[in-house]
């Protein structure tokens, strides 16, 4: 049984960020930190992604909570962030740190797969693959997960896919 301790989330988060920063800089990885509400994103270059992931896993971030991808059509990029946290390291358990990379927006963007580092990313990478068309190099089983291939072909979560809504008043005269 766990008793509810009076746990201050922001101090845990700060500790986790320090730990992640140390892990990355000890491997000589260049990164920038962006602050969100309730989490920090660490953005690295594409070539450091796998090395950064390995370093963070060694630092105790043992599973992927969410593989968050956002499409920025104006800036011609995808922002792909693996939001991580820890189960086994009690000091930083629950603190969300993102390891992210910016992917240029092209027809067939690709990034190295981190499934080999975090098994928990496997299904989420498949999901991102079908919704954004981002390919994960080295993924063991890259198939659509939720969608059928014709729908996945439309890359539904990209911003240029516009939801067309039925007009329920179509054909109804405006007055009388």
């Amino acid at each position: 049984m766990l008793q509810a301790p009076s746990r201050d989330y922001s101090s845990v988060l700060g500790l986790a960020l320090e730990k992640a920063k140390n892990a990355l800089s000890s491997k000589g990885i260049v990164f920038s930190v962006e602050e969100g509400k309730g989490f920090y994103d660490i953005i690295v270059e594409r070539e450091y992604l796998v090395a950064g992931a390995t370093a963070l896993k060694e630092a105790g971030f043992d599973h992927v909570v969410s593989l968050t991808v956002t499409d920025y059509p104006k800036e011609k990029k995808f922002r792909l962030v693996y939001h991580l946290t820890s189960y086994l390291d009690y000091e930083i358990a629950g603190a969300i740190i993102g390891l992210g990379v910016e992917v240029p927006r092209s027809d067939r963007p690709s990034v190295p797969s981190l499934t080999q580092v975090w098994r928990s990313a496997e299904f989420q990478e498949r999901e991102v693959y079908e919704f954004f068309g981002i390919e994960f190099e080295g993924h063991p089983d890259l198939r659509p997960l939720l969608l059928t291939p014709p729908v996945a072909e439309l890359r539904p979560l990209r911003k240029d896919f516009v939801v067309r809504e039925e007009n329920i008043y179509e054909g109804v005269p405006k007055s009388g």
Partner: protein
Amino acid sequence: MVEDVRIYGGWKDELGLKVVPSKKIGKDLYEVFIGPQHPGSGHMRITVRLDGDIIVEADPDIGYVHRTMEKLGEIRGWIKPIPLFERMAIHDACNITMPYVLAVEKLMGVEPPLRAKYLRSLLCEINRIGAHLYGFAIFGVFLGHSTMYMWAMGDREVFIELAEALTGARLTHSYPLPGGARRDIPADFPDMARRAVNYMRKRLKEYEKIFLNNPVIRSRLEGVGVISKGLAAELGIVGPNARASGIGYDVRIVEPYDAYPELDFEVPVFREGDALARTMVRVEEIKQSLRIIEQAVEWLEKNPREPIVDKYLYGKYPPLHKKIMESEGRAKLLPISAAMKVPKGRAIGRAETGRGETIYYVESDGGVNPYRVRIVTASARNAIAFKYVLPGHKIMDLPAIYGSLDYFPPESDR
């Protein structure tokens, strides 16, 4: 258009999606499709390859009830996604929308008053009991124990009615709002809640007699579907399933939200990691939820009523709305909330739903719609367990493992 021709184990595709080379079935393997039209699968399919009676490979194929929650969340304004997101798990409606509301609150910088926090936590716990009882019911059917099914489904009714008395709706309550809650408790609610709590405590003892300590059920569950602590962390299993494997992780403790820091409760953790432990965690959680309900009701009864929305928002209420709030304890939505704008930023909200941790990543560009809503529900993260836990078990263990994981396809498919 694409001709969607299915090749074995992969998809043929002409426009760029990768074709996975067809997997050869071994000579003596037998392929069985459990689902989607199958009494024991739910809205999903598990492709199972059998060597005799032993599962060699399992491939969960989810997505049969996908409803594009993430995309719809981007075009519906800030308030309307709340009733939308409830559809992921309607019997867990308050829990599943809670993280979204928390994320939007973080972005807006509003904070609900303590009374609203207690109200929301109260409904969350009522929902949690309902969700666990629903899970028990399905589990009972999977193990051929029809009495458990009927009992759990019947006793769930008590908590649905409790939720109805609080919110006015049996399942999709749309109760939490950014910065508050929708309704205060009615006058007869505390009595009703206490009776429900006492009733459930009595019933749990009977459950133990007929289900948990039933020799047949125990022999089906003990040592079946063992997930070790390391494997659970590697696969990112969440919620009661992780806690059954010895991982002491509960969002209510690691990032306390709402009234949970004020409440006295424990989080049950088991070390065995088998199907029985996963079941027992839920039983213990129901007991803890009953404790929380008692405390919350007592607090709500003792403390004077106050407006249950954030002070800043309440200041913007027109007199009529204020009157309704004071006389009936009901928070009416402001007309402007349809075109509400939320400051630019990124926020992660999370809550412990009945099936585990649910995360919403909400990004705002300062407009009337969320720029991006990423939803990762508990079931979505548990789905991977089928692939890695099932192999090595007998085919008759499949329902025992499925039921003990408490996997809920509509929640997973979003």
